[in-house]
């Protein structure tokens, strides 16, 4: 079974703090993703990575950065946390497959980190 783990289930930080959210997957997936989930807005992509040291902006990258130094680990960084970054953060990973092949774009998710910024 693919396992995606996230470093914390719940996190409380103060405005202005630097926050690190860690994600690790154990199935040698090339692709990794960070989403935030807010009620009524679904999942919105923050950043993704197709390979080690590669990153691409998603739909809402402002206020966030990422790091991927090893294939299995993808970190999300809030440089200076703000109250509007209070949210559920979900990490996911997937294999890099040709379009249409079994397993194509099937993302495996971690349990999420509920971050509260006070």
């Amino acid at each position, binding site marked *: 079974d693919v396992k995606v783990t996230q470093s914390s289930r719940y996190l409380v930080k103060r405005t202005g703090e630097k926050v690190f959210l860690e994600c690790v997957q154990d199935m040698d997936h090339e*692709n990794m993703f960070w989403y935030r989930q807010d009620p009524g807005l679904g999942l919105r992509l923050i950043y993704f990575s197709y390979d080690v040291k590669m990153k691409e902006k998603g739909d809402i990258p402002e206020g966030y950065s990422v790091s991927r130094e090893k294939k299995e680990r993808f970190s999300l960084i809030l440089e200076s946390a703000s109250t509007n970054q209070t949210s559920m953060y979900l990490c996911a990973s997937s294999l890099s497959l040709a379009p249409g092949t079994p397993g194509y774009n*099937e993302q495996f998710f971690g349990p999420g980190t509920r971050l509260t910024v006070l």
Partner: protein
Amino acid sequence: AQSVTQLDSQVPVFEEAPVELRCNYSSSVSVYLFWYVQYPNQGLQLLLKYLSGSTLVKGINGFEAEFNKSQTSFHLRKPSVHISDTAEYFCAVSGPLRGKLIFGQGTELSVKP
């Protein structure tokens, strides 16, 4: 650009009743469609997917979905729901380019006894 619209934000239903969760997509390229489920306090897990072939797709836990290209829909159905099906359901679409999924806003299914 691709987009997904889930037409109902909340669907209350009684146990053993049938249910349909609606999903419409917009895309100018060939699409691949997914339904994910999120149980309370958990991450998302894949229910079913359409990549090609038969337009009727069967998934886990008795769910199925039908891909309708002319109506650009991918509605999720279950003939008889259980209390344990209470969860949030997300429809997602991807195109032929790398890796990304576009998610809908989610539908909260609430099954009552």
